[in-house]
């Protein structure tokens, strides 16, 4: 029960704190994809993206993709990690080899969040009901 309260407090403080909206969005995404982890290890292919996660509670940035639970890809690179992969552009979401579960990117003049059903299933991820609208069967 203490654990439960701890996690609830963590989520609430995270979302109430004075962090950027982009960070809040990623916080929601990371914790929805990896709900069972108290400390999510994040690796970014673009090091400048680490600023998004650095002050995020329940998240720690790691230096190696092999140590990561969540990989944020901004380019198509060889990736061997079994971590959950998330991308920052629509084109990367189309790359089969990346096998990304979703992406957060600008397209058609608006910010988009998109998850791929098949890749979510491959990682046995079930998103909460209120995030179902962001799931697409195919691109």
């Amino acid at each position, binding site marked *: 029960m203490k654990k439960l309260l701890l996690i609830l407090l963590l989520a609430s403080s995270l979302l109430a704190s004075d962090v950027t909206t982009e960070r809040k969005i990623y916080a929601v995404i990371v914790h929805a994809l990896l*709900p069972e982890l108290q400390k999510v290890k994040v690796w970014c292919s673009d090091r400048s993206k680490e600023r998004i996660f650095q002050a995020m509670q329940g998240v720690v940035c790691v230096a190696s993709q092999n140590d990561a639970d969540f990989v944020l890809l901004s380019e198509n690179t060889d990736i061997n990690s079994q971590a959950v992969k998330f991308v920052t552009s629509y084109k990367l979401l189309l790359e089969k080899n990346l096998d990304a579960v979703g992406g957060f990117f600008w397209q058609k003049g608006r910010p988009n969040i998109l998850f791929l059903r098949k890749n979510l299933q491959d990682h046995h991820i079930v998103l909460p009901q209120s995030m179902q609208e962001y799931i697409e069967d195919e691109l």
Partner: protein
Amino acid sequence: MKQYLKILPLLGISLFGEENLNLLLNKYEYEAELSKITKKEEAGVLDIYTSHDLQMMQIKTLEDLLRILPGFHYTRQYDNLTVLQKPSISSRQLSSVRLYVNDHDLSSNSFGSSFLIWGKLPLEYIDHIEVYKGAASVEFGNETSTVIIKMYTKSPQREEGSKIRLYGDNYGSKNVDAYIASKNDSFSYFAYANTNAIKRRSYTNEFNGKEYALDSGITGNNIYANIKYEDWFAELGSYTKKGDNFLGLGIYATPSGGDVDSAHSYLHLTKTFSSNIKLQLSYDNVHFQREYKDENGIYLGNGGVVQNYNVGFDDNLIAATLEKKFIYEKHMLLLGSFVKKENFSEDGEFIEPISNYYYKSSYSNTQYFYSLYGEYSYDYDPNTRFIASVKEDYIKYRKYIPSTQEFTAKLGLIKHIGRLQIKAFLTKTYAPLAYYQLYTPDNVPFYSNKELKNMHINIGSLVFLYKKQYDLFKFVVAKNQVEDAIYFDPVYAKGYVNSSKVMDYNYFEFSYQHNFDLKNKIVTTFYYGDKKTTSYESPKFTALVQLFSHYDKYDFYSEVLYNSAYSYANIDCDPSYDVTSSLKYHYSKDLSLGIRGENIFGTGYKQVYDGYDSAISVTDRKVWFNMEYLF
């Protein structure tokens, strides 16, 4: 218990954030608006029209925005060309208002105003617009101006994908816009094309028992493309427009033909170096042909009276700008230089068939423009910034016209006191001469007006901004003093001359904005301009109320534009109310359908034309139907 522990964090996120992901996305979109990156608070009194504003308003062309631009009245000249009036002052081409697409200056010195060609520019490729008033253009390089309209194109990084927009109106106007945007790691491109045929209400004028049609439709084609590769950015723009010339230039406003045919193409190349150095190179080619036919005569200054009046301007110019920015803790110093070579020519052909009069005249010249400028800002503390900028221009002509040297300076202060922001600017600048002023078309044979001097302007402006969580109050007071003002003397000089009087102009603006939330707001703006004489050729007072509203899949926008009464050329104009409303239905994220009613009650602003017996509405009473699809 373990199962509960797995679910409960989900519950926590659901409680605190995930159900708000849509709200967070909206907030992110709002916070990430490009205008927040491009705006320059130091540059003057600033009005911003964000991409969200432009979309909700269902803005089609630049004139939709000029209509409601605080500080001006939008109207059209006798020959259907777009023109701005300062409150209480008659319509004239303001060379001191300059128009930019990104960093490219669209103004041509030949005619003094970029609106002649670009005033009806379709805006679908524009992301957002910034309007700086009381500015000296040191911040933007190029030639001086007191008002700068900066239009920023849509970014491939944001727009990746394609769009098509179709709209038409109850008069039978048609417009098609299309663009495509793509990007990868180091390369991006954006390409846009537009074609339109805009119809306007036709009026008639009766003279000697014969009726003459006063038409003012236009057709236009606009192309814009940019390519970004690493630190290189190349742009291509081209706009061609052909329009009826409305009342024309005839003595009795009885046009029997002719049109205004214009084209402006440009290339602009920008290279950004890592050491805060920016180099820009550009090339422009401008053609502007005005043909008027009036069987009852067109007054041609010292050329007498003719029936056919055909004048063409051609410009081509190359320009380069080099800037370096030094940033050190609280100090910022920008040093820049601007050089331009502009070839310009005018060809005139005037015919009077009855007396078999035929006259042809032409001239050509070249202007060389050299400029050095600098801007320094110092953050005395986190709430206080001092700004100083200077610019020295040297203008030389290939022949006839004497060289001139002009100095521009601006001092500014931006101070934050709690929720209050105060901006104060003192500007000393000038308006460069337009070539049509140096070589008046109405004075044949064309000769250079060597005596004419640049108009000099001193501006003092003070802005108070008070922000609360949902409210924004703005108060602007500005005083202009114009020396060497230029006016047209049809009797003695038969051309443009400088006034020996110093002209004073006072301007006041108050606006209040209340944001209900990110997508719902009301904006009220009041402005008053007084040229401090006994005759007023346009309304002194204007009030504008704008309502931006979003509900579910609907965007609703409404504006009411009130202009006070005025009297000109013995015609009294009552106060006017222009009500414009638009509704957009988002059928899906990618498809939207819209309807926009303009001047709904037919009571909008009317323009008096000397020689025509009643004032004519600037905006037609119209209904537009709009469809936009993203793919």
